[in-house]
């Protein structure tokens, strides 16, 4: 993903996340910063994906997180893993992209719960599996739309 895309996507995702949290029940409708990190990993380049995931996660932690570094570690890990996966699987079509982002979103939930358990951190407002599934689906739709739009503008290469 090109730097100019990140200049647009990361602040935009931050603003969208803030707007969702203002909506009360809509707070867990989507995780825009995770979507940006996963979309950045779709071309399959691991280092940019890792760095974008790190930055997106740090922004998420700083703005909305309870434990600094938690989202950074999760987003970075997922972006890096998805970039590695993209080296073996063709993620150029909408359906594979949607499945990858959906799976990544579910994995993010598992990783967060794992980190909380690992460090015996006081649990924050962790949504239930139903909410997380819905969020993963919305993330998948958002990710496919964002990736398609970025690809048309040549920002995804």
């Amino acid at each position, binding site marked *: 993903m090109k730097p100019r895309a990140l200049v647009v996507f990361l602040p935009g995702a931050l603003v969208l996340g803030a707007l969702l949290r*203002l909506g009360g029940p809509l707070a867990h409708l989507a995780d825009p910063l995770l979507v940006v990190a996963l979309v950045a990993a779709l071309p399959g380049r691991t280092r940019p994906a890792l760095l974008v995931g790190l930055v997106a996660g740090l922004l998420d932690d*700083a703005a909305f997180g309870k434990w600094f570094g938690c989202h950074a570690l999760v987003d970075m890990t997922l972006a890096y893993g998805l970039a590695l996966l993209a080296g073996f699987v063709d993620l150029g079509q909408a359906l594979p992209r949607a499945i990858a982002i959906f799976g990544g979103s579910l994995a993010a939930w598992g990783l967060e719960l794992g980190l909380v358990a690992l460090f015996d951190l006081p649990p924050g407002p962790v949504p239930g599996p139903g909410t997380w599934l819905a969020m993963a689906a919305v993330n998948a739709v958002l990710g496919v739309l964002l990736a398609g739009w970025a690809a048309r503008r040549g920002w995804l290469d």
Partner: protein
Amino acid sequence: MDERRTALLYVVLAMLLLAVLAWQVPVDGRGNALLAAGRAVVAPVVDGVIGTVDLVRRGWTGYVALVGIRRERDELRARLERLETDVALCDEVRRENDRLREMLDLARSGAFERALVARVVADLSSGPRNRMLLVDRGRRDGVTRGWVAVHRGALVGLVVRAGRRSAEVMTLEDPDAAVAVRHREGRYVGVLHGGGRGAAVVARLDYVPRDRPVVVGDTLVTSGLDGVYPPGLVVGRVRALGGNSPLTWTIRVDLAFTGSALEEVLLVPPPPPVERPGDAEDGP
């Protein structure tokens, strides 16, 4: 080679982040300074978003409230108009009630035991020489020609024609009207003739000797000497003195009632005929 470096970088960063997380595990109430520092970096953006949304929300809420207030104002304005109309109607009813009570008190005073309250339903005047009112009482109510119309103690006129359900009253403004009057304190008497000359309806009192102490503003009442009107009804006030005769005054009189403003009148039966000497001598 590049992938290995990236993997190494991932491992280093992951270890670093894990250390950061481990450092944040709360021990004895220690604060999370790292999170606070991170918050400080992105706070302007988040605060800006929250502030903007809050501003829009408050603006929208204010707009909705304003629309509600505007609707409420319109409803209150309509309600106020209805209430003002009701108040005007109540005022009119109250005034009518006062007038009727006054007439009823007069009727109960014993002076006019058979008096009836009649509503003025039409003004039949057809110019200054014909001043008539139509009232809603007639022969069915016992009203006949010769009944007297009174309003608030002031003489209005005389019933000159009685139908079944209505009657025509010739008012004192009619030029053909005439009534025997006297000064309230009895200083002089005379016959007052109705108005009708010209635009100004002013009655006149003729043939009052100039040696009588007539003063502008004197109140004139019916004397009863004509046998038509009951005595003591207010007729009007002296407006001006005049006349060409060196012996008598011609007095202009402002009548006590104004025909156009009447809504009800009290109809009073005529005084009983005076028995003249000789009328009762029907025996030997």
